[in-house]
């Protein structure tokens, strides 16, 4: 997989954005942008150039699941892999995410290794050569 992939990390808690950014950096992904909620994430995504979205679930203004639905409903964005990051480890939430078209789901806290596995699996499914 290409290390130039551009990530968008969406979380309202800047400490968390930084954690995820650092983990991605550990994995060699340095092309990372951030958004603090679904609304600003969508605005950035519409600007184009992103290859992967990592989004929190619980956010003000527009939640992660709403963002996910908006992405899937958009002709230009619907192909984007979206990894949902959250502490909501409840089954009905995971099912909801699956229904809404999440590409993967990772429960906080996680390590770079776990994140790597999730990303690889998603890219594999999408047919991106490893």
């Amino acid at each position: 997989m290409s290390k130039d992939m551009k990530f968008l990390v969406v979380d309202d808690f800047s400490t968390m954005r930084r954690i995820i950014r650092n983990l991605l950096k550990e994995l060699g992904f340095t092309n990372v942008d951030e958004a603090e909620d679904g609304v600003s994430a969508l605005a950035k995504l519409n600007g184009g150039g992103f290859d992967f979205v990592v989004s929190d679930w619980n956010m003000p203004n527009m939640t992660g699941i709403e963002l996910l639905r908006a992405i899937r409903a958009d002709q230009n964005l619907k192909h984007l892999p979206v990894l949902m990051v959250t502490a909501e480890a409840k089954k009905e939430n995971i099912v909801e995410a699956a229904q809404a078209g999440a590409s993967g789901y990772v429960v906080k806290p996680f390590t770079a290794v776990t994140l790597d596995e999730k990303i690889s699996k998603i890219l594999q499914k999408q047919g991106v050569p490893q």
Partner: protein
Amino acid sequence: MSDFAGMEELLRDFLTEAGELLSDVDNKLVELEKRPDDAKLLNDIFRGFHTIKGGAGFLNVDELVKLCHLTENLFDKLRNRELALSLEVMDVIMSATMVVRDMFQSLERASMPQPADTALLTALQDALDGKLSAPAASEDPAPAAAAADAPAPSATPATAAPAPVAADDGPDWNALYHGLLGTSAPADQASTVREVQPTRNPGRRATDQPEADGMRAGRRDNDKVVVVSQETTIRIDTNRLDQVLNLSGEIGLAKNRLNCLRTDILSGKDNPDTFRALDEAVSHLDLLVSDLQNAVMKTRMQPIGRLFQKYPRVARDMARQLGKNVELVLVGEDTELDKTMIEELGDPLIHLVRNAVDHGIEAPDERRRSGKPETATVRLSAQQMGDHIILEISDDGRGMKPDVLRRKAVEKGLIDADTAANMDERHALQLVFMPGFSTKEQVSSFSGRGVGMDVVKTNIQKLNGRIEIKSIVGGGTTFSISLPLTLAILPVLVVRVGEQPFAVPLALVREIITIQPDQVQEVSGKATMVVRDEVLPVRSLSGLIGWPQERPPAYGVLMQSAVNNLILAVDGFVGRDDVVIKPLEDVKPKGVAGATLSGDGSVVLVLDMEQLLSEPHVETRRSLFEMAA
């Protein structure tokens, strides 16, 4: 060894951000008491705990995760109307928030927090199980009945979700669920999944037993702790930083222009055009430098709301314990103040808020008797007035009685009966600022914390501010604090003794008067002057600094000091000035705070009035006006 080696920066970020979040949660909790059904509040508080939990998980602070997890679950049930918010539940939530804050404090010392009290965890669990909501639930028949009808505690609506999963036509959601999670658990096990605890990754430190955690935390506490100081960083609006950058760029250009002109002049090109250009360049630089000073100052400005937001909770907790009903109203939270000042104001303001709730506000029955609303209001406000910030703490309580204050001060031996009798009402109020003065016989557990109003006044004066009291008996008390916008530049009044200039902080100066020898009278052996019916002691500056009085002083500076007001007798004035104080390196003369340069390059000593006036020097008419032969 720190518990957070290699994660210090992350920890600091977390503490700053999570600390703000927790203060916000605290305020929302106070709001929630007034509007227990507000869905947005419940949701916001839920999200607050959720976010703190998420961050704490990455830092491996298991105890914090556990506590936040329980509290978050409680709010999940509250926001889904599965539980009703009773007083008991509210108390448990308030204690949980307090413990979360304690844990933050432990994290600030970079040590793993102790596990939360078992009693608290049990209480949270009880609240979650609906054991604390019974009375409140019965008031609201519909949802309560639904909850009561639920067959078993384990089958509360939120967790009874599997049904639609199986019933739904279309894709196999169970399979999808496992696809997403990346697990291959059999379907029957999946359908019984109730709620997965936040999973910890194997390979990380995963001691899960509370006993083990407790021991670990206990042991680590004795180790040498690495202090993570939260206050060494500041968050600045990037626009403000950009402005600083822009201005320094422009100053660079102005400097280039000056260099160019210097070359011209040195090479003999000294025609009027060159000098006009030089004049323009210097004026331009002058403007840019003052803009830069302002811009840099702005980067240190923070909204005072950061400080204010801690107080509603303080007032609420205290009022609750004292059996009073108090609402704290915040006004002007957006008002900006220098970061250092905000930090230094924390203690004095908390003291004044506590003081208002404890001493200012009457008990509910006393308020009823005097025809006041049972719920008292304490108002904390901030606003900018010109180059000053005015903070006010006002209550609608019983007010302060000057007679009582006078009597107390005499009883405590702080002033003599004569002084008390001569004291007008405004000054009697100032007595509370005297060291050793406390109006309540019983030192309460709140206000009496070894910090008196004298310390409040001293702290405010250290910030070059002043504090005043207005009080109406039966109507309430207002403490009004006036502060300069910044500490970097000190406005001073430059006075002269002989030919030597001295600077006194302008904040202490009330007015300037002339001194006529015949207006100075001796009262109990001390030189005094009556200014607008106020008897004020006269102290000469030359006497205070130990110089001989070479000529009768011509002017008096009416000053407000920590203890009382006085007239500082001087020979003359230079004027007012804004100075930057440079501390003196090797010598530290008594009563001198530092030195500064005046515009013409001469050194001016800046006086530390408080220290200067602590000198037990008695001024008489004789020492003022009879010169050494």
